[in-house]
């Protein structure tokens, strides 16, 4: 056991997932700078523990709805790195055939209902999914992701309120990485406390260290239980940090190099998971190197897959907009 309750095998798996995400994002950022990814990306380097902690607490049929910064969510939800990378490339073998791109990853069979280009919108859709779940009396939950910037979008609170009054099986995860583009959360968030704001709408609300994958996992597992039991929604603020710029190639003047270095050196989610495993004698340096190498190899394979994937057929540009040209069925 890595600590009292988390089996080392589990923690090791989470570490592997975090390493995969880290390798994926570092690679994707480079590819993006090299112009391989049309439109660029929003890398989630530093935020790996949020994605892995959340998804590890979900069941297969649980649903997520995500944001513009979402590769980590997709990978942790089980989407193949090949399909995700090919989608960043906007190629035919991407998870949605190259029509979505970096901000619009999805896999309905795997319960990933899509990223979103509109801040706050993904959480609204998750609320709707939770309504669907309740309607069907299923045992699933819906998880909606949003950033700290998204807590100032009014529509988010409409969704939270609906979830509260209807006791929907919804978990809203606020990834508070401190910044919305270059705007620090404290400059624009009246009251300065996202959890308190959420509590004012009648949802259970809690804050968690988003750099601690075990803590995130436990928090979400609790919220999931509550949701499934009918006790209603929870908003979880996961305090985290993005190491890279807001989007590809951003030159950051709004924060110091020291601040970044502090987070990287003191609170890195991969470092701390590794340290726990080492402390439990379940991992040594060589073992870690093996995992890291495997992650990079997996990502290299994904890059090769994406590079080899053909462009979608231009003739399909107007396909699948709606079904009104065909007979009405069902």
């Amino acid at each position, binding site marked *: 056991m890595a600590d009292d309750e988390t089996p080392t095998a589990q923690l090791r798996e989470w570490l592997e997932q975090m390493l995969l995400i880290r390798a994926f994002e570092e690679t994707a950022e480079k590819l993006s700078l090299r112009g391989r990814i049309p439109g660029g990306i929003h890398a989630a380097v530093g935020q790996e523990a949020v994605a892995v902690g959340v998804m590890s607490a979900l069941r297969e049929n649980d*649903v997520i*709805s995500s944001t513009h910064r979402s590769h980590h969510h997709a990978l942790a939800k089980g989407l193949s790195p090949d399909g995700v990378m090919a989608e960043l490339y906007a190629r035919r073998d991407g998870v*949605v*055939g190259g*029509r*979505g791109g970096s901000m*619009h990853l*999805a896999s*309905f069979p795997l319960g990933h*209902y*899509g990223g*979103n*280009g*509109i801040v706050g*919108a993904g959480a*609204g*859709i*998750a*609320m*709707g*999914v*939770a*309504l*669907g*779940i309740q*309607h*069907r009396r299923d045992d699933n939950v*819906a998880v909606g992701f949003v950033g700290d910037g998204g807590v100032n979008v*009014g*529509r988010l609170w*409409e*969704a939270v*309120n*609906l979830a509260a*009054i*209807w006791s929907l099986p919804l978990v809203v995860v606020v990834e508070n990485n401190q910044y919305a583009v270059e705007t620090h959360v404290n400059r624009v968030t009246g009251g300065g406390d996202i959890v308190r704001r959420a509590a004012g709408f009648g949802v259970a609300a809690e804050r968690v260290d988003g750099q601690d994958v075990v803590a995130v996992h436990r928090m979400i597992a609790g919220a999931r239980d509550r949701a499934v039991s009918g006790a209603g929604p929870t908003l979880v603020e996961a305090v985290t940090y993005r190491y890279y710029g807001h989007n590809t190639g951003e030159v950051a003047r709004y924060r110091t190099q020291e601040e970044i270095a502090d987070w990287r050196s003191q609170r890195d989610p991969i470092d701390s998971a590794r340290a726990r495993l080492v402390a439990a004698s379940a991992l040594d340096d060589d073992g870690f190197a093996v995992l890291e190498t495997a992650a990079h190899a997996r990502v290299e394979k994904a890059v090769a897959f994406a590079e080899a994937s053909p462009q979608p057929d231009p003739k399909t540009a107007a396909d*699948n*907009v*709606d*079904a*009104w*040209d065909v007979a*009405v*069925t*069902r």
Partner: protein
Amino acid sequence: MSNQTMTFSEAFQQGVREEMGRNSDIFVLGTDLFERGGHFAQVKGLGPEFGQERVRDTPISEAAMVAAGVGAALYGLHPIVDLNFVDFALGAMDEITNQAAKIRFMLGRPVPLLIRATHGIALGGAHHQNSLEAWFMHTPGLAVAIPSTPADVKGLVKTALRAPDPVIFLMHKRLSGQRGEVGGPDDLVPFGQARVARPGTACTIVTYGGTVGPAIQAAETLSGKGIDAEVLDLRTLWPIDLDAVVDAARRHGRIVVVDEAPLVGSATAEIAAQVQQAAFHYLDGPVTRVGAIRAPLGANPKLIEAALPSVADIVAAVDGLFDPAQVTA
């Protein structure tokens, strides 16, 4: 056509009731639905019949109402989001335009969602009188149904509730109480198929929703002058039955397009532009548009009347196409 006669609102109720009976995935949400049955009695009686889970009252949260519909639709249900007045859609335009309309294209998952709203000009001040159908028509991924008879209300809502894609369903305020026969449980009205509201051979007045009535009145007036005008009710703006309009242009070369939206940028522009392009050499005169002036519509009925197209305006537009001075200018 069964022989039941009922109002516009009752036709909606009946169509929805029948579809809710056959498909338990359908439910409706909106403000003041359960007890009141909606501000236009459009779901009156459905609350007690289907219970609070399938007729769900919401707070005033239009964005979340549509988001709820989108999410539930993706999960496999077929929600009806009742926005009350179409004006309140302005608070949910991202959910409608970026989310509901685009998800099928982007992510490959259909969004079976009916968004109902009362629209059209009546009274109540400028915030309650927006004509937004041209916006929805311009949005790929949305269908737009605007019935003008109880039969079409029922038949179109039933089609919408069996379709896999989002439909904006607009019911004109002034038609709420209008009575007419409706079809039976299996009578679906297809989208994209115009209806001849009044036959005629000399010219065609193309319109939909609240201006079908005035167009028919205009045709009656014209018939007194020896002009036999057809009135074509489009019923849906998307998919749109352009073939029917182009066909009319080919038959007699005279087309007038009418609605009550501010003329600049209205749906009439699209129809006129398409027809002149598709049937240029058949036209005896320009495709002539009749619509509202470019102004908000205030509280005063006389100002509203002055802003809107009148029966006389429609008659004048048709007359213009038969005026040798104009047509051979």
